[in-house]
């Protein structure tokens, strides 16, 4: 087994606010191997972005602080690094593609300059080199007429174009890992397909590992090798894509799969929503975070967090239903791909 490029071990990360401490990430573990595409899926506020941004320490500190656990990048503890060392890592070791290209690009800076900025202050890269490599990367991500585009400002580009620029920015420094935080959420569906194809093509061409953060299981199915399902600041289920979709082992995952709108089945007229709201991270429940919304919840679910049960083949689930004494149940997700003929 090769060394994982990103290895998150039992990471807890909180934010201090006036109202108290928000425990955004509560003991999350995940890893990414070279060349792999890993998906992190979950609804808004489940801690997926916060844990991913820990990889480059992009969370504002204060109010954010690491409460426990480690985050290793290529075997080195990221939280042990100095600000200077972090800066050397950002952009060149890990590239970040953000959610909304409308707000994540500086409105008063030209596109070309924004991409070239990755090279500013890096020893051994001349201005001319930076310009050439940026132009090359912009071409690679499918920007036509790079000369002209480089001299334009973000507002002169369409949303899809801007997201391509974001991707170019993330890739131009030649990182080994790209973290794409909801890369297609703010784009319309046709553009989404193009952007995903672009990311996949670039991965094959450049051999970069990718972490995709999303709440869209369609994106996961299209792109990922392995998936982590997060809920309430914890990973509730993880495993290869096939296992997550076809051998679903956590009621929350089943609920997610059930809430996909599907046209071709008898469920088309009824969209299954998961009842209730996510847990309050100011005072997270002592047991399973999903217990309050779970159809299968038992008493133990409210009292103690479930351990991660290894289901074989890298598939793991933190659900008391996997305990050897639990009654065997069939998770209902009538419209999930696994149960539809």
């Amino acid at each position, binding site marked *: 087994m090769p060394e994982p490029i990103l290895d998150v071990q039992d990471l807890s990360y909180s934010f201090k606010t006036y109202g108290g401490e928000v425990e955004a990430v509560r003991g999350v573990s995940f890893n990414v191997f070279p060349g792999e595409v890993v998906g992190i899926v979950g609804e808004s506020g489940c801690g997926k972005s916060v844990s991913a941004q820990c990889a480059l320490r992009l969370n504002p500190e204060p109010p954010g602080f690491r409460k426990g656990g480690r985050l290793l990048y290529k075997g080195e503890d990221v939280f042990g690094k100095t600000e200077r060392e972090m800066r050397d890592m*950002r952009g060149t070791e890990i590239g970040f593609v953000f959610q909304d290209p409308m*707000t*994540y690009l500086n*409105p008063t*800076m030209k596109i070309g300059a924004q991409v070239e*900025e990755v090279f*500013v*202050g890096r020893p051994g890269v001349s201005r001319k080199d930076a310009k050439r490599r940026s132009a090359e990367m912009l071409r690679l991500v499918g920007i036509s007429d790079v000369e002209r585009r480089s001299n334009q400002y973000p507002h002169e580009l369409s949303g899809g174009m801007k997201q391509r620029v*974001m991707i170019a920015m993330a890739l131009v*420094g030649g990182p080994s890992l790209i973290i794409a935080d909801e890369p297609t959420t703010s784009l319309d569906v046709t553009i989404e397909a193009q952007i995903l194809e672009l990311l996949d093509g670039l991965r094959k061409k450049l051999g970069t590992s990718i972490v995709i953060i999303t709440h869209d299981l369609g994106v996961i199915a299209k792109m990922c090798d392995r998936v982590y399902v997060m809920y309430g600041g914890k990973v509730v289920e993880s495993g290869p894509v096939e296992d997550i979709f076809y051998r679903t082992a956590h009621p929350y995952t089943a609920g997610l799969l059930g809430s996909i709108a599907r046209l071709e089945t008898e469920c088309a007229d009824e969209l299954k929503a998961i009842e209730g709201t996510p847990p309050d991270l100011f005072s997270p429940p002592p047991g399973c975070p999903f217990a309050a919304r779970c159809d299968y919840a038992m008493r133990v679910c409210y009292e103690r967090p479930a351990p991660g049960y290894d289901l074989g083949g890298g598939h793991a689930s933190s659900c008391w239903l996997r305990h050897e004494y639990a009654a065997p149940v069939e998770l209902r997700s009538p419209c999930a791909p696994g149960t539809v003929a």
Partner: protein
Amino acid sequence: MGRYIAKRIVISLATLFVLVTVVFALVRLMPGDPFSSEKITPQIRQNLERYYGFDKPILQQYVIYIGQLAKGDLGYSMKYANATVNDIIAKAFPYSADLGLRALAIAVSVGLTLGIVSALNRKKPIDAVCVVVAMIGTSIPDFIMGYVLQYFFGIRWGLLPIAQYKGFAYTVLPSIGLGFYTLALVSRLMRSSMLEVVQQDYIKTAMAKGASRFRIVWKHMIRNAILPIVTILGPITASVLTGTFVIESIFAIPGMGKFYVTSVQSLDYTLVLGMTVFFGAFLVSANFIVDILYGIIDPRIRVSRR
């Protein structure tokens, strides 16, 4: 851009025209006339009125005035013997402009610096100091500020001269007195603007690219945070220039303020009108320059006006 500028010039001229018309009417509506306070015989009075053209119908006077104005001639003052309004302005304006520009320079440079420093050190002692300075500046009126400065720096500590305008040392106190309010305003605005920009998503992008702290502050924060400041530069110029009246009289500076105020009191029609037109033209062009400047700094505006 060329069309935009042409359009703005036409609008500016129209603004001035309206200004002249309104002020012309208002001055004439005031009770009394320039000669009513002087003890003169009716005969002399008639001569004076004929000399200045007051015997003609008012509309005709207006047309004549506009005609002169178009040639740049603001006419003779009615109170200062043998002095044209142009002469008076030419003599007094350099003092006011000098004072105004110094005050503006201090206000903008120090104000921006304070705003930036306090935003970057939010909730630290230095931020509190800046906020207090800004609060003092916005709450103390300039005539009190002027006397306070004179008292401490001039009389108590004897550091700087407190009156007249004859060299650099003389300019310091009036410039500070005049610029302090604006300084406070600029620093407050810059602080809040910076605090807003700090939270913008593109700052995180810049961080993720590995940009240095200095670069993030300089290239990403300040450039975007300064936009609202540029917008208020026009009105700020206006307030600083009109503020000179008070400061000039406190520090006995022979600028335009004194002439302007006395001209209104003594109903010196031509001088009131001339100075108003002059100030108006000055402010209109200041706003015009600010608009152009704004387009240069914020590319989004440049495009929508093309």
